[in-house]
């Protein structure tokens, strides 16, 4: 049985606000879903993932576009900005 405290802890770890009302419905849903996916424990296979077939996926360390080519387009998506920076609330007091 998953508890209210556990849901609250998961919400905190997920950086996500969850209302008390939602916690109640999540408790029973989580129980039935985790009960179902928990059947996985019946499998006898051991994690034998082995080595993946490795290959080099790195590109050459070279410029792929002109400086500032995308800066304005990307920064203009930010909810809050100041000049060439994304603006957030201060984290050190």
């Amino acid at each position, binding site marked *: 049985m*998953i508890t209210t405290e*556990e*849901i609250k802890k*998961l*919400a905190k*770890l*997920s*950086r*996500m*606000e*969850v209302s008390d009302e*939602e916690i109640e419905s*999540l408790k029973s*849903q*989580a129980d*039935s*879903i*985790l009960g*179902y*996916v*928990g*059947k*996985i*424990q*019946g*499998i006898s*296979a*051991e*994690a*034998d*993932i*082995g080595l993946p077939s490795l290959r080099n*996926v790195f*590109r050459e360390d070279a410029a792929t576009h002109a400086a500032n080519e*995308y800066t304005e*387009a*990307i920064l203009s*998506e*930010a*909810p*809050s900005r100041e000049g060439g920076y*994304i603006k*957030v*609330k*201060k*984290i050190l007091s």
Partner: protein
Amino acid sequence: MIDLSNLTIVIARKKLDAREFSAVELSKEYLDAIKAKDADLHAYLEIYDDVIAQAQAADERIGRGESLPLLGIPLAIKDNILITGKRASSASKILEGYVATYDATVIGKLKAQGAVFLGRTNMDEFALGGSTENSAYGSTKNPYDLDRVPGGTSGGSAAAVSAGIALGALGSDTGGSVRQPSSFCGVVGLKPTYGCVSRSGLMAAVSSFDQIGPIAKTVTDAEMIYEAIKGTDPLDSTTITETTHAKREAKKSYVIGVPRKLIDAEGIDPGVKENFDMALQKLAELGFEITDIDLPSIEYCLPLYYILNFAEVSSNLARFDGVKYGLHADGKDLLGDYVKTRGQGFGPETRRRILLGTYVLSSGYYDAYYGKAQAAREALKKEFTEAFDHVDFVATPTSPIPAWKIGEKHDPLSMYLADIFTVTANIVGLPAISLPSGFTEVEGKQLPLGLQFMAPHAAEHILFDVGKKFLGEVI
């Protein structure tokens, strides 16, 4: 007047090249059809305002004598695939106002061919669901019965093709999201081999499962879109090359494996079973050999799929924080901004999966869930490799049940169980196709059903070959 109901990409290509109609005329017909039908269906979240301009550009190229398979062909694009300068939201409130800053690789390839993008289609938020009911912008309706779901998560794309308001479409498939809505809407849907089509510019849901795939009226049309979008991409390190997987030759006759235990499992609709047996009979008449196969780990396919799905979703969706783009809700400090933005921006199913993903990845539970799921995934991969020594492909129904009524499934788990036949291809990375296989009558309405084939890695050509034979398409 162009007859859109019988139009395919193949026919449109011929008529565009023969100047029987122009790309502008074709696109105008589609815009009119959208106006007439989409108020009921809600397949589209947005119709682009530059459709005619795109079609004009295609006409200019046709005028210069160019002929590319998709030049001037009007397509619908799922709302989680980026097109520069266009909105893309994954049907989520958390991406409210977001405008794509680059083209997905598949979009770049379609633009190079001169395809015309009609608009972006509705979906389950972040491709999490199976009915398009999880969209923050309302459900899409099934063209065969407006009270029913079109399937999901690419429900808007499948409904658009089915209703004749797009000639073809792109969807994405994480656990059946191209194939299942295709079966619910009576069209063809392909999930390519993992890594065959670049995921650059596709919003990530479950990175080890996601693939972009075509939805079309015929196998030949689906193949044309697939040929246009596939290929190795330096921007997606998981893309494969021509030599990654062993080549398999197309044959005159094939051996079809049927995982009988899975099909005889509880919860499979009798109408679906009957339709599947009829499909097998038809395949036998076409000269295919049919044999039962045993895949012992397949009974764990849904638990393993959902554990990995929750885990990867919880980490992939960590990027939505109200700082870089999309919705921002104000808290008392930076942490408060995150917590409020994510609390308000994500819908109920997305929130559920983020929390469950955080649970299965937390220390103490990791080995029992994530570790076991990885082991089961490896076991299932091995079993398929062995099965493909004896059979050329595997057949199942696409979905255990036909399209359900909008709002009928309240319990999230019951929705998950409807993915029983489709998740395996994503777990193992196999290509799989859903073909229209007939209808079942439910409450006086004819509802489409689908037949699914799964082939070995990189054997899409076998799926196309068998699909054309099954549907009687001229090869």
